[in-house]
């Protein structure tokens, strides 16, 4: 009977082990077979589509408007001519002959692609910022044929606010866009339609610099009541309408294009494109005033425009912890000046705050070492029944006044901290390309030489070696010792910043444990000597 139970037990543990290995293999296979081909496919697609013709140019249908008919499909010519180029301190904005923002090139030195070229936000065949569509089919058709006239073809807004007027004269009405471009690259726009027709304006399709599975990309709306609505790409089946919108942002991992008006809330429609990805259309009649931003989701840049806009930086469902974590990191970074050292410092800070707790636990753990024989006895007595032995052990600890365990809370707390740092590393443009020392030149990417993960595994192994543990089961013990290896493998592909955090964390745990161990050894020697001298004096 007992034998059978033992066999069963070993069997389960083997299965656990297999499950771990399998999940690990799945993880790698997923990365190689799915993520990478997808990336390649995406690259190919962008190359192909650059020559294809613009798709449908239909205005979204609004239930309330009686004159809106079935969505008209108007074909327009391919590449539009650039009629105006604006240079600011942060970007170069190009306006095409349909009065849309054709391209935005970021000028700041940190925004470069892998070929060392300055980043351009938009891909070729997508909806562009400031494109206007009319709900009236005839006007709409005209609006995509008549060329726009710009008041200036070259504007230098590096030293002060500049104005650009775009006029589009159609048979029955005139569309004017008055743009005020600021030196920091954002703009105000007032759009006017002479005959009061109903129209829609868009911040454009999301930037297409880096949009992958690791972070959300799509559309984010902030409502008047403070809530956020996020619609991810390929996730919108039919047109949806919203009212009371504070700002509308179309975003990829690091970049965004936003239109907002904080004085007058917006009514918008989200219309799916051919891939069911959301396109933003802001409703307007007669005229509308908006402010726009196209660029990186940089916390400082956005909060300078308006504090509310920082909500456009989105860390997935973990935002509520990741955002404070980012703010803390940014605060420390202001003093330190390097993101790598910032991560080291924050790890040390967390460890210092938790030190009194950890110390108490370690002392308790070491005291237990002295009670080891009695524990062994208990363990042998209740072998193969973890619940019973757990209960008996607790009774014993209570009697001896020790409790060696660290507790579940400190371990569970590690998880949100860990995820917060992970999300911040993935989503914060500030940490993109952040260097540390030697070979680490991007904390948001994996360590190219696998040094940090291996160091991490090594410290974890040492930590296990010098920490007294109570695992009774032989098989489980082996599995436990194997954990550093499993962890090392998992961390190979994680962002270097995250591995750095875990490594420093382990390093300090080892340091603490070592310190406590030596303290204890000393105390033991001292007690022993006292004991001896006591004996001595007795003899004398």
């Amino acid at each position, binding site marked *: 009977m007992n034998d059978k139970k033992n066999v069963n037990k070993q069997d389960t543990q083997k299965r656990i082990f297999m499950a771990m290995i399998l999940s690990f293999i799945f993880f790698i296979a997923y990365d190689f077979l799915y993520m990478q081909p997808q990336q390649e496919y995406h690259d190919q697609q962008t190359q192909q589509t650059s020559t294809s013709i613009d798709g449908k140019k239909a205005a979204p249908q609004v239930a309330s408007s009686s004159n809106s008919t079935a969505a008209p499909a108007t074909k327009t010519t391919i590449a539009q001519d650039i009629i105006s180029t604006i240079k600011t301190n942060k970007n170069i904005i190009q306006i095409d002959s349909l009065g849309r923002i054709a391209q935005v090139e970021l000028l700041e030195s940190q925004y470069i692609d892998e070929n060392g070229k300055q980043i351009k936000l938009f891909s070729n065949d997508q909806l562009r910022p400031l494109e206007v569509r009319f709900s009236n089919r005839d006007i709409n058709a005209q609006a995509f044929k008549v060329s726009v006239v710009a008041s200036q073809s070259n504007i230098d807004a590096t030293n002060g606010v500049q104005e650009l007027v775009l006029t589009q004269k159609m048979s029955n009405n005139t569309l004017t866009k008055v743009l005020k471009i600021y030196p920091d690259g954002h703009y105000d726009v007032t759009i006017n339609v002479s005959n009061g027709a109903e129209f829609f304006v868009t911040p454009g399709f999301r930037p297409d610099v880096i949009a992958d599975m690791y972070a959300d990309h799509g559309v984010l709306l902030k409502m008047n009541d403070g809530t956020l609505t996020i619609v991810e790409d390929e996730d919108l089946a039919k047109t949806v309408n919203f009212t009371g919108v504070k700002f509308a942002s179309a975003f990829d991992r690091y970049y965004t294009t936003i239109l907002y008006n904080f004085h007058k809330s917006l009514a918008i429609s989200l219309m799916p494109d051919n891939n069911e990805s959301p396109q933003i259309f802001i409703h307007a009649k007669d005229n509308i005033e908006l402010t726009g931003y196209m660029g990186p989701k940089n916390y400082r840049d956005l909060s300078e425009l308006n504090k509310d806009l920082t909500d456009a930086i989105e860390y997935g469902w973990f935002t509520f912890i990741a955002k404070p974590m980012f703010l803390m990191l940014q605060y420390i970074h202001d003093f330190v000046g390097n993101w790598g050292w910032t991560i080291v410092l924050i790890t040390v800070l967390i460890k210092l705050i938790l030190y009194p707790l950890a110390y108490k636990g370690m002392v308790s753990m070491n005291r237990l070492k002295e009670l080891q024989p009695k524990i062994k006895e208990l363990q042998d007595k209740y072998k193969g029944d973890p*619940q*019973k032995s757990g*209960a008996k052990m*607790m009774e014993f600890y209570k009697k001896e006044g020790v409790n060696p*365990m660290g507790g*579940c*809370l400190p371990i569970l707390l590690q998880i949100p901290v860990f995820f917060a740092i992970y999300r911040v590393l993935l989503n914060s443009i500030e940490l993109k390309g952040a260097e540390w020392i030697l070979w680490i030149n991007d904390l948001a990417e994996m360590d190219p030489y696998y040094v940090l993960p291996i160091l991490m595994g090594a410290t974890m192994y040492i930590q296990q070696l010098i920490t007294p543990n109570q695992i009774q089961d032989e098989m489980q013990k082996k599995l*436990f010792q194997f954990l550093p290896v499993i962890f090392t493998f998992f961390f190979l592909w994680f962002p270097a910043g995250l591995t750095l955090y875990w490594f420093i964390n382990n390093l300090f745990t080892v340091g603490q444990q070592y310190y406590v161990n030596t303290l204890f050894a000393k105390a033991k020697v001292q007690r022993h000597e006292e004991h001896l001298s006591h004996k001595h004096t007795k003899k004398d």
Partner: protein
Amino acid sequence: MKYIILKLLAFYQKFLTLLSFGSCRYYPTCSQYSKQQFETNSLFKALYFTIIRILKCNQLFDGGIDYPSIECKFNNIKYKKINVKYWYVPHKNRYLIIKNWDFKK
């Protein structure tokens, strides 16, 4: 809902527990406690007591033996032989849930 939580707990106890092995300061361990709460108590009460328990599971508290304690009334008692999983032990107007070590499925 309860069912999903219990499944998640079972998954945790099977696969993830090694990551936090031997860290609980209590008997029954936090995961066992939580499981027993969800099996015997109402959803929200179980959730509440589980959260309290996890918050208490750190070095600021003594730890030790802490059985789930629940309020319940027994109506329409049928007298027959059953396979006992938990003993409901009366304690200060409530019942302590104590697992029957000999329980087999």
